[in-house]
């Protein structure tokens, strides 16, 4: 019974998405919407295949910016979360600033970055760091602070030092939270890089989309969107896979439930 249920759970979204695609294809092919306004799914896939080499070159640039930004964000988040966890004063001072920083629209910040850092790769990576830093830090700090106080007392009674408590108890406890943040950040990373590129540059999917739009090649715009979506999904599940590999006990828990 349970097995059928699982198959059903996976089938339902697939059938739904397929139905939308078929409807979309029909609407365009029957001439309800003009092709230059909205290309059909097959047009988009076709454009992707024809321009594969070009699109991949730009994808690679975007991917590189996204990953570099994500890694920098992870590194900064780790430092920030540890410092905030160890020194409550720092947390009190910085946490509100972090939240405020998230309310400033990134689309407004990006042109400023271009003015300050030029049109090279640096401002793109900067945008990625800005959008990825927050979800990782907030989740990590929550994970570090939600450790059972009795557990901390237990290891303190064993004579553990602060750094031992962090390395053996707090950090491993916070790992699931860290990965929740990382999964969100990873999907943001590609988007962040594209936003950065959108405001000017030499290469990347954002630049490519901008050019395609100016040429009214909407099929290429949609093909780029498709690549961005697929890339983000791959990153999301890739990180989920790393999480499962690093935390086998979480899988055991799911199996028992």
């Amino acid at each position, binding site marked *: 019974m349970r097995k059928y249920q699982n198959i059903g759970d996976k089938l339902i979204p697939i059938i739904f998405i397929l139905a939308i695609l078929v409807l979309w294809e029909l609407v365009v092919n029957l001439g309800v919407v003009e092709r230059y306004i909205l290309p059909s799914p097959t047009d988009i896939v076709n454009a992707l295949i024809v321009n594969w080499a070009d699109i991949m070159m730009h994808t690679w640039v975007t991917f590189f910016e996204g990953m570099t930004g994500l890694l920098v964000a992870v590194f900064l988040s780790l430092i920030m979360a540890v410092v905030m966890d160890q020194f409550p004063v720092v947390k009190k001072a910085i946490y509100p600033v972090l939240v405020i920083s998230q309310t400033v629209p990134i689309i407004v910040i990006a042109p400023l970055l271009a003015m300050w850092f030029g049109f090279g790769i640096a401002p793109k990576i900067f945008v990625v760091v800005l959008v990825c830093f927050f979800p990782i830090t907030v989740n990590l700090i929550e994970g570090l602070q939600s450790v059972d106080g009795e557990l901390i007392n*237990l290891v303190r009674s*064993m*004579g553990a030092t602060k750094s031992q408590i962090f390395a*053996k108890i707090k950090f491993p406890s916070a790992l699931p939270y860290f990965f929740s943040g990382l999964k969100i950040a990873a999907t943001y990373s590609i988007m962040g890089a594209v936003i950065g590129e959108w405001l000017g540059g030499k290469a990347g999917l954002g630049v490519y989309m901008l050019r395609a739009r100016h040429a009214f090649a909407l099929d290429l715009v949609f093909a780029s969107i498709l690549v961005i979506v697929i890339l983000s999904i791959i990153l999301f599940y890739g990180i989920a896979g790393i999480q499962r590999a690093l*935390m086998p*006990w979480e899988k055991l828990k799911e199996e028992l439930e």
Partner: protein
Amino acid sequence: MNTCHSKCVLQVAGVTQEYNHKNIIEDIHIHLNQGEFVSILGPSGCGKSTLFNVIAGLLTPEAGKVVVNDKDVTGKTGVVSYMYQKDLLLPWRNVIDNGILPLEIRGIPKKEAREKVKAMLPVFQLEDDGEKYPVQLSGGMKQRVSLLRTTMFSKEIMLLDEPFGGLDAITRLKMQEYLLEILKKIKGSVLFITHDIDEAIFLSDRIYIINGSPAHIVEEMIVPVKHASPQEMMTSEALRQLRSDILKRL
């Protein structure tokens, strides 16, 4: 019986601890002899755990001192071992690696620590469970692992804070017998917190009754029949007398 003899491993002398400018426990005098099982019996929330936190060195008392083997260890951690009602096992570590935690903290290399824990698994009837993760264990099994970890830190003085309070009645009875069996093998000394009169009578050599606000020791009692069987618990006149004396004090 109120004095600390040469066999005495732990002495708590006149400990007073406050919280929010109000005394929680006041002028507590207790001691524990080597190999002895002593219970601290009192109603829930009366400050028993505060007393344990002082003994464990997690709190520094307003007055009084904690002496272990003639050394003043007031406010010093890393001296006695502590076990809670919650198993507090690390979900990311299997049974063996949970057991090595106190050894790791002491700086013993992991490999050596694992060997030590593995050698103890049969004593704790966990020989087949070393590789299992806590999520795969029942509540009683988790407390066995927790007890194993406690003894790996130190068996000389063990503070057990209602270790079976979260278990169902049947598992709890089994765990009580299990605890006595383990203690016979490893020869540890135990200070045990409980609010269950029968549990205290069954397990203990001596019982301190703690009560009042602020909490203080109201009575010290010797258990006349050690580890009484359920029949003895019902029939022994001495135990019936003990129980009614305890009830009067609570």
